[in-house]
């Protein structure tokens, strides 16, 4: 047992496991911010009075939501980087990291949009009618009345999207980000097959430790912030 532990210790000294998790956390952090912004814009488009914007928002959501994330990542590499020759940094590692953030952002923005729309659903009709009655037009009504309440009602689905985002950040391997957790786990298992269960458990528990608090926090916040009706 002691032997096992010391070998196991060596294994984790040889590989930078926290570093790999840190890459996933950073990916999640940036993609969360950007997809929240993009998703809010999309949600506004979908509830706006302008038909072409509604259509564009709906089309975006329907396409992105129904495309596997792996496809989006590979597409970024083959089309945007290779053919359109758009580089986001001269440093390859930075470049593909940023593409990873973009891939995660455009995919999860579709889900953020739908979460916010479900939040809009929790806003009672009277609120919107009252906003119109006092003469607010669409954008001021959305900004002052609808969205603040919608966000509070959308915390639970937004939290779920954040959890999905964190887990999906492993898929950036398809856009050549090679420092994240799924790549490291595979490397570690391939050269230390006798520790396969232990290695998997470390990574699985690592994600559980990150995901479960987000879930608890979301539940707490959505109960705390829900508009009492």
């Amino acid at each position, binding site marked *: 047992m002691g032997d096992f532990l010391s070998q196991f210790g060596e294994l984790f000294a040889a590989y930078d496991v926290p570093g790999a998790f840190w890459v996933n956390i950073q990916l999640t952090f940036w993609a969360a911010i950007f997809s929240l912004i993009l998703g809010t814009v999309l949600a506004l488009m979908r509830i706006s*009075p*302008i038909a072409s914007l509604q259509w564009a928002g709906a089309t975006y959501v329907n396409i992105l939501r*129904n*495309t596997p994330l792996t*496809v989006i990542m590979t597409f970024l590499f083959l089309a945007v980087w290779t053919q359109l020759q758009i580089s986001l940094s001269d440093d390859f590692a930075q470049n593909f990291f940023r593409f990873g953030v973009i891939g995660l952002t455009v995919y999860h923005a579709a889900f953020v949009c739908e979460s916010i729309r479900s939040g809009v*659903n929790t806003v009672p009709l009277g609120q919107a009618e009252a906003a119109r009655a006092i003469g607010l037009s669409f954008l001021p009504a959305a900004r002052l009345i609808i969205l603040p309440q919608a966000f509070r009602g959308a915390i639970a689905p937004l939290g779920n999207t954040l959890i999905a985002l964190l887990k999906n950040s492993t898929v950036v391997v*398809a856009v050549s980000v090679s420092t994240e957790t799924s790549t490291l786990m595979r490397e570690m298992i391939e050269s230390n097959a006798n520790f396969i269960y232990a290695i998997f458990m470390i990574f699985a528990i690592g*994600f559980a430790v990150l995901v479960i608090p987000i879930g608890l926090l979301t539940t707490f916040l959505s109960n705390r912030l829900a508009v009492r009706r």
Partner: protein
Amino acid sequence: MSQKSVLFDAPGPRARRRIAVGNVVGTLVVLGIAALVAVALANRGQFAADLWSPIFTTSAWQDYFIPGLQNTLRAAGYAVVGAVVFGLIFGSGRLARVGAVRWLSGVVVEFFRAVPVLLMMVFFWLLFGYNRISDDPAFLAVVIALILYNGSVIAELVRAGVGNLPKGQSEAGLAVGLTGGQVLRSIQLPQALIAMLPALVSQLVVVLKDTALGQIITYNELLRAAQIFGNGNSNNLQTLTIAALIFIIINWALTAVARWLSRYLSGRTSGATATGPGIGNPTAVAGKPGGPGNAIAATGDPSAT
């Protein structure tokens, strides 16, 4: 559509003019971006006939896209059936009267919802491989990983579905002398399952999309078939586009079915029908059906994974 919304007044003549202008500008912006991308790709020769023509041959479909799609559907089919069974078992487990069963089911469900599917796939692929459990460890790994994750989501759907039934349902069952287990089996679960159906179909979209992760562990699903074919003709981008279109069309259709089912079934159960399973916590999604008269926007179905 726009005149029915409660978010803005029915537009008058001036507003209508502004909306018309907005429409034109919006359309132009969207078309402009599309045109810009298309021109850039055309400049790179990406619309050249010799990159596209290999795709429209019998061999491309017979040897690559259709077998790939078959493999995708096969993995998704097994995964969905397995996930429903897993979900029913552990969902009922979380509603059990014995504390230990409830606790154990809770741990299992929470654990598998927290671990990324790709991580599970890589692990099972290597594990089955090393232990020579199957001739096709990649297939088995894809199916098992999808069952564990989606089964856990469905377990939560079951729990939420039962939890959302009016209390009177179980009280009535108990009042006529049924035991707790009998109430669950013959009154609560059947109604919860009906309420779950649309969400279940939405979950099928999630499963189908996630089979594409099998590409990374060399499972010959649609995306990988497209990649292999693209390697032979140096047209990876074009074959990827075709694979993406196939995925989008199938998933779009499934989403439409889910929406239709949700409308069709609402009012046919005393639980609320949810279109979307949510990713981690369906209770919250299904548990907050908007109050009556909330015609602001359609219900969202955040079925991200």
